């Protein structure tokens, strides 16, 4: 068990290093000198050289990489070549906003998908099950940014009951915070729920056909009791796997949804950084997103052993 966890942690750390090398190398191939770009074409060679030294871009790439990556664990992402301000605090600010979005959307997706998926599986031969399956198939076809635009059209433009966008920090005004959060969370969460419902359904269907569920039924347990006692834990593994894969989708979906609702999260920071060709900032945000995905995968792998005792032995 311990060996397994340690091995998994080692894989995680190696993946982090490999990902950081990839991100850094990718941004380093860009033609053009950040110092020259920052100063413009009329700059003298001396001032360019001085700025280059100030940025640290005159050092060999390996040294630059080491400098960048060694700052990451303590939240030091360097200083932007464009705005000349520290990147770490900006990312920290924005992460909180995006976390609200992603966590609320995940919660909403779970609350919708678990009962609906079980219903669709338990009634897969009847009309209600087919309706749930059909609606979830439709939901998958609607990207979250499109759902966002449609929600704005109905609830902000037509009915005027909710704001069409923007962000209010929870500490400033909790009521307004929630009002601003509703539409983006629904846009993200409902689409995720559609995907998740399908997996919950197929996982529960698989379990329903297992011998142990049939035995439980034969012993006189009702379908739901049998499922609750013997089925859910077994159905949980594929569902948790998909949920983890979806966090990546959700994070990146948040990037687009933040643009629709003009929310100052990580996605907006990434897109603004790209528009301003602020590469160190882009590099930092990309790294944060990739670390988040890898971290969720790690947590899920560790969670498997909690859900399924059989996996602890191996």
């Amino acid at each position: 068990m311990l060996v397994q966890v340690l091995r998994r942690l080692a894989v995680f750390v190696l993946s982090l290093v490999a990902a950081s090398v990839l991100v850094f190398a990718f941004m380093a191939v860009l033609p053009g000198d950040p110092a020259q770009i920052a100063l413009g074409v009329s700059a003298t060679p001396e001032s360019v050289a001085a700025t280059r030294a100030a940025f640290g871009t005159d050092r060999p790439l390996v040294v630059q990489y080491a400098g960048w990556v060694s700052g990451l664990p303590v939240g030091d992402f360097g200083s932007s070549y464009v705005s000349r301000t520290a990147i770490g605090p900006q990312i920290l600010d924005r992460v909180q906003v995006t976390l609200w979005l992603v966590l609320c959307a995940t919660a909403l997706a779970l609350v919708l998908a678990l009962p609906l998926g079980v219903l669709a599986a338990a009634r897969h031969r009847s009309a209600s099950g087919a309706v749930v399956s059909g609606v979830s198939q439709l939901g998958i076809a609607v990207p979250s940014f499109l759902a966002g635009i449609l929600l704005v059209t109905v609830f902000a433009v037509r009915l005027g009951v909710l704001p069409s966008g923007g962000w209010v920090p929870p500490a400033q005004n909790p009521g307004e915070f929630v009002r601003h959060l509703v539409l983006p969370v629904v846009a993200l969460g409902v689409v995720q729920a559609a995907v998740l419902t399908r997996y919950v359904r197929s996982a529960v269907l698989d379990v329903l056909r297992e011998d142990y569920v049939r035995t439980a039924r034969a012993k006189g347990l009702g379908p739901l009791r049998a499922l609750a006692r013997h089925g859910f834990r077994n159905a949980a593994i594929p569902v948790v796997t998909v949920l983890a894969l979806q966090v990546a989708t959700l994070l990146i979906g948040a990037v687009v949804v933040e643009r629709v609702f003009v929310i100052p999260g990580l996605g907006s920071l990434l897109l603004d950084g790209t528009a301003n060709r602020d590469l160190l900032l882009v590099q930092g945000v990309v790294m944060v997103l990739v670390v988040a995905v890898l971290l969720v995968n790690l947590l899920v792998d560790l969670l498997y052993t909690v859900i399924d005792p059989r996996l602890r032995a191996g």
Partner: protein
Amino acid sequence: MSTAPDSQPAAQPAPVLGARGPAGRRRATAGLLIGAVLVGLVVLTALVSFVWTPYDPLQVDSTARLLGPSGEHLLGTDKFGRDTVSQLMLGARTTLFVGFIAVGLAAVVGIPLGVFASMSTSWLGAAVMRANDLLLAFPALLLAIMFGAVFGASTLTAMVAIGIATIPAFARIARSGALQVLSTEYVLAARAAGRRRVGIAVRHVLPNISGLLIVQASVSFAIAVLAEAALSFLGFGTRPPTPSWGRMLQESQEFLYLTPRLALVPGIAIAVAVLGFNLLGDGLRDRFDPKLEDR
């Protein structure tokens, strides 16, 4: 990066204890049919756009801005007075083009990698799958935004980024399919008869996993359509003036108060294409692998 169970529950074979009655089969066939019709509709629209569109989709007409639907303009016009139907038709072309190149790239790179990993007994096979797992941490949109930041946004960078991000899906499915084929007796016989590994891969493995791969291609196509739309929406995909459904959506955003129709039309087009490819993939999965319940 999930090591324990298969991360694609859809690929798990299910027991067949009368799993699918005639009703299930009928529903699956219906799904396949609807999917084929929707995909056919998009393909046909794109093909027709090569020879005919109601108007020149790029023609700006300041006297016909933001018109509602009428006999002249069936779905109205946008803020530049461009005909929405014509834009939509050309957009179908962009969508399919990006999808084909992206999925094609992913298949051409991913399938050989997956088959290689399944046959390799050295560390190289394991390394390929590890690299594959790492790539999974970079979603298509994130890759495309990085590509856009470095190489500039264009249809090409979007296609390549989506394609690269899709490689792991093909490599995984090819590997797991190939592993099954490799354990069969006819492969053992071929090996005993002295056929080389490449020969076995081409003669036995590829034909037997082609069904799986076609299903994966259809599902990946749906994902590519979504990614292209999102990228164009963000301004990282197809550049103006080439019409694209994602950009039509983005341009519609400032007119949500006036004409929500401008958002609805490309939105429906995206949903139709994605739904079509998803249903097609699901239906084909049933056809190629009757052991599986319709999912």
